[in-house]
């Protein structure tokens, strides 16, 4: 029997090798992929996030935890597609135009993925038009924007205005974050959600996707 508790433990401690081996063993034994994801991987990432929020973990631990989760997901992804399991929701995430800081954005993306969301990673230096395109073409339900510079955060407002102009604003939820961003700024520009860390970003997204 594959020891799925050790999968959870491996993700929490960032042990990618064990995570992969246990996942493969579990799959070989025919354990339901949905069970692996929702009963082990998602709770494991939730725990990683909890520790990060409580300041027990920092960026390196969060990254290696996410890496371990991803090696496991890589094994499961093809099977998930076959089994017709639906992701919680589809999320497009990117660092805004003119900004290339992506460490925080990547953490948020990993945590959301670990939380069962499907991620469309638009990368860095993402223009309002590219965000809009993701709504039109990929049908994303939530847009996540990250900005680390006081000189680039204005691009979030531009994107929201462009969504309005394109008549798409009521089709998607907008979540923003990054070191200079505040709840007040989010209110000011009319974003639907904000969080100051990657773990809280997941609960925020769950709220917006109405699954929490």
């Amino acid at each position, binding site marked *: 029997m594959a020891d799925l508790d050790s999968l959870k433990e491996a993700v929490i401690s960032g042990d990618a090798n064990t995570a992969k081996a246990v996942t493969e063993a579990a799959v070989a034994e025919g354990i339901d992929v949905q069970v692996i994801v929702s009963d082990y991987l998602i709770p494991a990432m939730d725990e990683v996030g909890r520790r990060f929020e409580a*300041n*027990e*973990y*920092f*960026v*390196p*631990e969060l*990254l290696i935890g996410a890496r371990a989760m991803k090696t496991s997901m890589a094994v499961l992804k093809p099977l998930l597609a076959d089994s017709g399991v639906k992701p919680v929701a589809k999320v497009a995430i990117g660092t805004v*135009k*003119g*900004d*290339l800081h*992506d*460490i925080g954005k990547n953490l948020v993306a990993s945590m959301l993925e670990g939380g069962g969301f499907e991620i469309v990673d638009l990368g860095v*230096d993402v223009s309002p038009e590219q965000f809009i395109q993701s709504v039109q073409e990929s049908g994303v339900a939530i847009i996540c924007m990250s900005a680390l*510079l*006081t*000189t*680039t955060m204005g691009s979030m407002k531009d994107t929201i205005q462009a969504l309005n102009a394109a008549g798409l604003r009521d089709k998607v939820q907008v979540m923003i974050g990054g070191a200079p961003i505040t709840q007040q700024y989010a209110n000011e520009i009319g974003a639907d959600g904000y969080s100051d860390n990657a773990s809280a970003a997941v609960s925020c997204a769950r709220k917006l996707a109405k699954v929490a």
Partner: protein
Amino acid sequence: MPKIQLDPLGVVIELATGASINDALFAHGVEFPCGAKGRCRGCRVRVTEGAAPMSAADQKVFSDEELATGWRLACTMRATSDLRLQLAAYTAPVLADETAFTFTPRDGLGIAIDLGTTTLVAQLLDLSTGAVLAVRSGLNPQAVHGADLMSRLDKATQEGGLDELAVQIHQALAELIAGFADERHPLERVQRAVVVGNTAMHHLFARRNCDSLARYPFESSEMDLSEHRADELGWPLPPATPVFMLPDLGGYVGSDLLAGILATRLHESEHPVALLDLGTNGEVVLGDRHGIQVTSTAAGPAFEGAGIQQGMRASTGAIHACSVHGGVPSYQVIGGGAARGICGSGLVDIVATCLDLGLVEASGRMAHGVKTIPLRDEVVLDQTDIRQLQLAKGAIAGGLAVLLARRGLEPKDLGRVYLAGAFGNYVNQSAGCRIGLLTAPPEHITTAGNTALLGAKLALFEDDLAFTAIRSLVSHVSLKADMEFQDRYVEAMSF
């Protein structure tokens, strides 16, 4: 009552015979980054006029030559007769003077200026002898628009902002120069002035368009030497006196680092050496006479004590150092009174000590499940303070790691690592090594003082101020385009 004149502050204080110089200086706003125990050289001052007896501590910490040239510790010094003192904390560059530099004498006087984001320093030199005649320092008045570069650049991109910032800095420097005239130096003999500063400061000084620096791509096409006239700047010098601001090196790496290269002679070194300027915008230079790479890594303001729960700048009440006796840490406070907060050098020292004592784990987490560590008086170290330090030191160490990797080098291959800037001067080097801010072997690390000012001074004697030869050796590495940086950065975050 003995009268003491303080340079470069330009103040004269009077104090009772036998009074402690350290306390008197402190009362006049001069603070030294040490515990005033006669053990280090943190409070060194130089007696330039008058005589001061040597204390036992002086004899221990200074060489005979230093003693002969007037160096004393303020903390063991008493007022006995009239004196003129030079404060080393302000005049690290004057210190660097003593490393005899070769120059071709020129006629007249020259002015060297270090135009910093926070502080301004100007020196008046006799170009025929190389002697420093006077030093003046002040604060950059642009700080009213924000302490960091980005807010100044932001202001510069607004209507009328650039002009406002330019005039502000021209006037502030005019006042420093006017201070030389107050001391009756013959400013009509000034032949030239050389200014150095980071790329943003250069843009603001020379009224260059800041749009591309303030926003993507955070680079500018105008990096060359700029030439001005004293009358155009409103400086109290002969109207046609040329004022040069030296060329920038790339990205945010400005002429202050070009000056740093000149000051450390990095461009002549046979073997690779590094120069680190540890600030909010940290700069890293790595190279030798075959080639030089420069980069800037945005460390954030933790080294200046900002963004730390009880952080403060290095002034009265700041814990600036920490030592362990019999397994028990004790914390040193600037001014000797009650602790009010933690400054950048204190943070480095405290975390290094906590790591040694097992109070903080290699991951940066506080051991035993605590979230704060009480230090002294009301001051505590918070878990988030360590996280801020990890981000800042990781950025510097990660930047150097990228440059080293590009040349296939390891930290131990660096013959020298020069630390420039105020924080670099004060930080405890072994603590810096302990926390992984400095990755080279401790014996290879040297503080280099204000290399920007020293380099500006050296430039006063040069003909080719475009420094074409050095600049052809230099390439700017942009970390934002560097795939490797993120890995190195995260790696360098742990202790």
